[in-house]
């Protein structure tokens, strides 16, 4: 059983500010059902541009719910400039600490806040999206994000990175890459990267391109899908359009639009060529979204 602080339990059993604000000034949505936790944060500003009200809706464990609840309390009364300085450590400290393996909940809180602020600044246009190279395919975590948690939490090990942002917690295929990022951020001599470097050939014939796409799918993408009980099939390559079908769990997953297609596209751009884009084959899209197991 987790050793949760009194304050955390209080915020889990008596969460503050549950719900959604009508016509909010900022909305931040992060996480997904597939990842096991998701948070939707909404806030409203007063006439002095201070956060007047903040509400949350969270899918997740006790610490995810408690983190969301304290976050809404923390940011009330803050200006946007003050709110954007809140980092995951502040949230965890405010809760009286989090178990190490649950630190990713505090990072999710900070991400949601950031997404909501971005959304406010862009006038409701910007939604949370992946920025930078995707390192962890299982949980869709980018290099930027990993670097940030390493810096903000003074992280030394791959295991800690997994605890703080989930990267490396699925199939484990990106652990070598995470190790390299830790070395880089910590300013130590970088070890040779364990994973294959993404050196892209300059000119590709059609045949070479298809082969490289297939190879990237086999080596970089399939292992993580498999570890989720899913699979991917390369249907065709037409120019820069890569047509794939998701099988098993991935085909039914309602968040596959985000975690799968986007991640596959990022990996193909990284390993093959920047101009590629991914679409899903008809049969994969048309599969009924079945929730019932029988």
């Amino acid at each position, binding site marked *: 059983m987790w050793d949760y602080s009194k304050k955390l339990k209080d915020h889990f059993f008596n969460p503050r500010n549950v719900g959604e604000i009508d016509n909010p000034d900022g909305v931040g949505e992060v996480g997904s059902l597939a990842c096991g936790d998701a948070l939707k944060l909404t806030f409203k500003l007063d006439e002095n541009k201070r956060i007047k009200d903040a509400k949350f809706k969270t*899918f997740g464990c006790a610490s*995810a719910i408690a983190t969301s609840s304290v976050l809404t309390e923390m940011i009330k009364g803050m200006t946007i400039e003050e709110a954007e300085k809140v980092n995951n450590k502040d949230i965890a400290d405010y809760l009286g600490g989090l178990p190490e393996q649950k630190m990713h909940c505090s990072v999710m809180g900070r991400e949601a806040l950031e997404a909501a602020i971005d959304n406010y600044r862009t006038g409701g246009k910007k939604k949370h999206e992946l920025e930078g190279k995707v390192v962890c395919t299982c949980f869709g975590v980018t290099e930027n994000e990993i670097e940030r948690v390493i810096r903000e939490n003074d992280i030394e090990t791959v295991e800690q990175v997994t605890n703080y942002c989930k990267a490396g*917690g*699925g199939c484990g295929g990106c652990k070598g890459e995470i190790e390299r990022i830790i070395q880089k951020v910590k300013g130590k001599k970088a070890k040779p990267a364990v994973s294959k470097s993404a050196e892209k050939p300059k000119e590709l014939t059609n045949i070479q391109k298809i082969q490289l796409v297939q190879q990237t799918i086999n080596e970089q993408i399939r292992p993580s899908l498999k570890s989720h*009980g899913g699979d991917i099939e390369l249907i065709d390559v037409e120019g820069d359009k890569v047509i794939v079908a998701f099988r098993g*769990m991935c085909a039914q997953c309602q*968040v596959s639009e985000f975690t799968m297609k986007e991640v596959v596209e990022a990996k193909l751009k990284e390993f093959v060529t920047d101009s590629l884009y991914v679409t899903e084959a008809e049969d994969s899209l048309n599969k009924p979204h079945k929730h019932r197991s029988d």
Partner: protein
Amino acid sequence: MNTVYLDSNATTKVDEEVFEEMAPYFCELYGNPSSMHTFGGQVGKKLTQARQRTAELLGCLPEEIMFTGCGTESDNTAIKGTLVAYPQKKKIITSRVEHPAVLQVCRDLQSKGYTVVEVDVDKKGRLNVQQLEDELDGNTAIVSIMHANNETGVIFPVEKIAELTAEKGVVFHTDAVQAAGKIPMNLSDSSVNMLSLSGHKLHGPKGIGILYVKKGTRFTPFILGGHQESGRRAGTENVPGIIGLGKACQLAKKYMEEENRRVKNLRDRLEEGILGNCPDCWVNGNKENRLPNTSNISFEYIEGEAILLMLDQHGICASSGSACTSGSLEPSHVLRAMGIPFTAAHGSIRFSLSRYNTEEQIDYTIEKMPEIINRLREMSPFVVK
């Protein structure tokens, strides 16, 4: 607040008769059964009786029973002991839904050069026996398939598998940790070569297990350093543990039929009560062929650990296949192998009953469940009012 214990697949209460039987063997009759004096020797007689009692539950010969430290040790010993006995064979067949005590051992062996085949299950958790049959070949050293699944309670056709493996001359091991004491067994009439059992799952003590090894099965000891257990498992016997396990097996055999009827009724009552009162939930696993005590229910759009903590507040103990409860980031490998959507795997709760549960406890749980589910759904961003 009274505890409502609905987590009997994790561990069970030690039966008081079991405890009484064990008690003298700590401070009074503490002798070593291997000793040459009467004081130690009398303990040996009690161990013989315990071995006899466990053999009766399994329907086998007492000399086919080997006591181990736990179910996990039994599984490790069975698999590794067989591989050493058949050094020329390099293939292991298991299933995707095994307990980690089998699955992790197999995956570790895979990294050491063995070929491991993990047989699939369907969406109801039923084993693809045809796939298993197709994979059986001359290179296969061992097939290890559980008797009943710990998370869903789904029962596998072990007798059918035993026939297939016997035909091909392949050793068949089954992890019966959850099945023992709930499913009648007669191993003397079966082609199962090895079977694991754990004391604390059937109202015996923790720290004691059994590996049944059928006479004539090639096997190499895993733990060396003494003559105990006929040289197959060295180490001074866990005397009170063995005696307690013997008693627990005796009681299990005595009460099995009557209990399974009563426990099954309670389980069905709990299931119907929850499904009837909570929307968007369903039972995972094949309802037609399940352990009588287990119910695995998925609640959509909410997360298992949060449900467990709220149940805990009411004194109700259960467990979950969600990622957060395991400390890992992935939800249950069993539910994923069944193709249960993530939405439902994260929100799965396992209730597992025992003969100590009462109708009042079940009704109390049925009463508390809807308010917990509703509270969490109100917080969920995936529930739109």
